[in-house]
C-alpha cells in the first residue's frame, strides 16, 4: 500500500451524497470522475495546487500551495508531509511549514533547500512549476510556541533550520507579539540567508525584535559561548533551536552545564525523530499478527513493523517515522510503548502505527 494524503475536511452531508452516488460508479468512486475535472476535489486525500514559487536564495525556494479543501490548520513550527511525482514516481518528504496560520489567502508554504544528491528537493527548487498538483499529508511536530507566550524568547538557527522559526516569527509578527525576541541566525554568506529580506523587514518594523545575522564564510562560526556577547540574558529566555545536529547538541550541552540555565526551557527541532534513544525501550513481548497468521517474539526497543519484517512479513509502511499512518493496524489486545516518547498506551480496537510502537507485553494486531 502506498502512502496517501491526509483526509480532507469535507462536510458530512457532502460525504453522504457522494456515498449515495457511489452506486452509479462502483467499483470506482464519484471522486474518480470528479478528479478529471479538478484534481483538488478528491475527498479521499488532501491535495494542493502550487500557486507560486519564489526564489529565496540560489538553492532554496518557497513553494506556495493552495490546499484543495479548507486547511485544517497547523501550529507555527510544525512540519508537513508532502507527496510529489518525480519522473513517474511518488515521493514523500517532510518539510517545515514556513507560512503562518493567519494567511488570508489560505495558502500554505514550504521552503525546501536543494540537496544535490536528492530526488525531491531538486524537483521542488528547480523544475516544479505553478499549477502542479501535490499531495498533502499529515501535519506533525512538537517544536511549537507555548500556548502562553513567554515574555522573552531567543531563536537560534543555522542554514535551512530557519524554516520552522520563520513560521513562528510570522505568526508573532501577525499577532503583534514580537515584544522581546532575539534571533541569532547563521548562514555562509549574506546571499545564502533564506528569508534574509523578510527577516530584515520584520526587524525594521519591530523594536522588540533583534536580529543577529552571522555570515560564517566571512566572520567565522558562532559557538554557544558567543551567546554571552550577543545575547547576555540568554539564561532568562525561552529558547528555540533549529539546525544541524551539532548545533543542537553543543547548545544543549551549554544549557546542561550552566547551573543558572534551565534545560527545560530549550525547545529543539530535530528533523529525524530519535526512535529509541534514552531508555525508551520496554519489556517487549509476543506480537500476534492476525491476518498474516504469525507470532513473533519481539524486543521492547524495536518497532512492531521491524519485528514483523524480520520475521519475513510484508507489512504496509510509509514514512517509518510516525507521520503518514500508512503502516496502521488494529490493535486487538495488549499494550504498546511509543518509542518516541516512551509512553505506554493502547486500547483494544484502537488503530495504531507499527513504525513507532513496540509491544509492551503480549499484543495481538490485525495485520
Amino acid at each position, binding site marked *: *500500500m*502506498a*502512502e496517501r494524503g491526509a483526509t480532507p475536511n469535507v462536510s458530512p452531508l457532502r460525504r453522504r451524497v457522494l456515498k449515495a452516488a457511489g452506486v452509479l460508479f462502483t*467499483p470506482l468512486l464519484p471522486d474518480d470522475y470528479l478528479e478529471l475535472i479538478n484534481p483538488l476535489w478528491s475527498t479521499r486525500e488532501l491535495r494542493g495546487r502550487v500557486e507560486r514559487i519564489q526564489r529565496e536564495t540560489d538553492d532554496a525556494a518557497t513553494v506556495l500551495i493552495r490546499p484543495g479543501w479548507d486547511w485544517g490548520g497547523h501550529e507555527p513550527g510544525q512540519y508537513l508531509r508532502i507527496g510529489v511525482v518525480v519522473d*513517474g514516481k511518488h515521493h514523500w518528504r517532510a518539510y517545515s511549514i514556513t507560512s503562518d496560520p493567519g494567511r488570508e489567502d489560505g495558502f500554505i508554504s514550504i521552503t525546501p533547500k536543494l540537496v544535490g544528491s536528492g530526488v525531491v528537493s531538486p524537483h521542488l527548487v528547480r523544475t516544479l512549476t505553478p499549477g502542479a498538483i501535490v499531495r498533502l499529508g499529515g501535519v506533525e511536530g512538537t517544536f511549537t510556541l507555548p500556548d502562553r507566550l513567554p515574555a522573552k524568547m531567543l531563536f537560534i538557527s543555522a542554514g535551512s533550520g530557519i524554516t520552522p522559526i520563520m513560521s513562528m516569527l510570522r505568526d508573532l509578527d501577525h499577532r503583534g507579539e514580537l515584544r522581546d525576541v532575539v534571533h541569532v541566525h547563521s548562514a555562509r554568506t549574506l546571499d545564502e540567508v533564506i528569508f534574509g529580506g523578510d527577516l530584515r523587514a520584520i526587524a525594521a518594523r519591530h523594536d522588540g525584535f533583534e536580529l543577529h545575522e552571522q555570515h560564517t564564510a566571512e566572520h567565522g562560526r558562532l559557538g554557544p559561548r558567543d551567546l554571552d556577547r550577543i545575547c547576555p540574558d540568554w539564561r532568562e529566555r525561552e529558547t528555540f533551536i533549529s539546525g544541524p545536529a551539532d548545533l543542537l547538541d553543543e547548545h544543549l550541552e551549554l544549557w546542561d552545564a550552566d547551573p543558572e540555565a534551565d534545560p527545560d526551557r530549550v525547545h529543539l527541532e530535530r528533523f529525524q525523530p530519535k526512535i529509541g534513544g534514552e531508555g525508551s525501550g520496554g519489556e517487549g513481548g509476543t506480537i500476534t499478527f492476525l491476518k498474516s497468521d504469525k507470532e513473533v517474539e519481539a524486543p521492547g526497543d524495536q518497532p512492531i513493523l521491524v519485528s514483523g519484517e524480520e520475521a519475513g512479513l510484508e507489512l*504496509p509502511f510509509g514514512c517509518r517515522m510516525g507521520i503518514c499512518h500508512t503502516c496502521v493496524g488494529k490493535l486487538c489486545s495488549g499494550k504498546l510503548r511509543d518509542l518516541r516518547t516512551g509512553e505506554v498506551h493502547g486500547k483494544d480496537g484502537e488503530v495504531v502505527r507499527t513504525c513507532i510502537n513496540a509491544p509492551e507485553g503480549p499484543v495481538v494486531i490485525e495485520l
Partner: protein
Amino acid sequence: MPTMIESPLAHLSEEQLEELGREFDAIHDEVYEDLGGRDREYITSMIEMHRRLAVMGRVLLFFGRSNPAWLLGTSTLSLAKILENMEIGHNVMHGQWDWMNDPDIHSTAWDWDSASTPEAWKHSHNYVHHTYTNIRGKDKDLGYEIMRIDPHQKWNPVYLGQPFYNLVLAAFFEWGVAFHDLDLEAIQKGEKSKKQVMKELKGMGRKAARQIAKDYIAYPALSGPKGFKRTLTANFTANIVRNVWAYAIIFCGHFPDQTYTFSQKEVENESRGGFYIRQLLGSANIEGSPLFHVISGNLGYQVEHHLYPDMPSTRYAEIAPRIKEICERYNLPYNSGPFLTQLAMVQRTILRLAFPGGTPRPKPGPYRGDDSVPATNGRRTGPAGPEGSGPEQTDAGVRVEMPAN
C-alpha cells in the same frame, strides 16, 4: 495415452538454463531501471480515457432515443468496460504500476468492474496460474476445471457438453472466472476452510449486488420508465461484449496448438531459467495492430506477460524483439499467430477433446526470425548473449579483408 511430444525444455542443459535465467532477468532489470514519466503518463491517460468513454457511453444512452444512438452508446460503454478490465484492471492488479508508489493506481488498492473480488483474483490468477502455468494438475486455468483442453486430461462423459458450455462461459466469462476463483476442487478436498469459502462467497455476492444495482437498476431507472429497458439491454449487451472479448483473448493465451503443457515430473526442481522457458513454451502471442494490443490489455504479448507479469504492459512490445532474439539463439519456439487463426485452433481443440482420445497438436519448432526479414542463408546474424553465450555462436562470421590502396 496420448503420444508424448518432446518438449524443447529437454534440449537445454543446466548451464544453458542458468544462462537463460540470467538473460531474462537482465531484461526485466533493465526495463525497471528505465521506468519513469512516460510510463506514468501512459497509464494515467489510459485511466482517463476509460472514464471519459464510460461517461460518454452513459450519456449517449441517457439522451439518445434512436437506434444508432443506442448502438453507439452501447459500443462506447463496451469499449470502456473492456479497457477497464484488461489494459487497466488486470495489469494494475498484477502490480505492473506499483513502482509509481501511487496510492490509487496500486495492486493493493485497485478494484475492478468484474465479478471477482481483487483478493480472490490475485490468488487464483497472479499466484496459482502465473506460478504453475501449464503444469497439468496444478494450473487450474488449464480448462478451468470444466473443460478438457489438453489430451492428457482424462476423458469423462461430462466433457461431451463442453462445446455448449464453452459458449455459455464466453458470454458470462466474469461469472465463470469468479466461481473458478472459489476453487471447488480445494473445497472438495477440504483444503479450504468453510469460513474462507463463506468469506469469498460474501465478497462475490457484494460485487455481484453492486454490478446489478449499477447496470441493471440505477442507470436504467435514471433513464425513466420509457428508457428503462433500452438502457438495461444496453448495459447487459456491454457486459456480454466485454465477457466474450476477454474470453477470446484469454483462451488464445495458452490453448492454441503451439503451446506446451508440462507434467509435474518435468518441472521438479525447476530453476529460474526453467521457469522462464516454461512460461515461454506455455504461452502464445496474438499478432495485431497497436490498437488491438491496447484493447486486449497487451495480452497479445502473452509470452512477454508470462515472462514478466509485473512489467508495465506498454513495455512488452518494446522487449518482444529481444525475446525473439533469445528464442532464435537457443533454438526455442516463439509462439505467435493471427487472432482468428489462434481462436479457431482453440475452438477446434475444445470440440475435438469433448470426445475421447486426441493427441497433442504438432508444434511449430524453433523460431527462425521474422518472415518479413529476408532470409540470411541460414547464417545467424543476431547478437551473441553475454560472454558470447548461446549455442549457435560458434563461428565469428565471414571475415573480409579490405583491399589495400
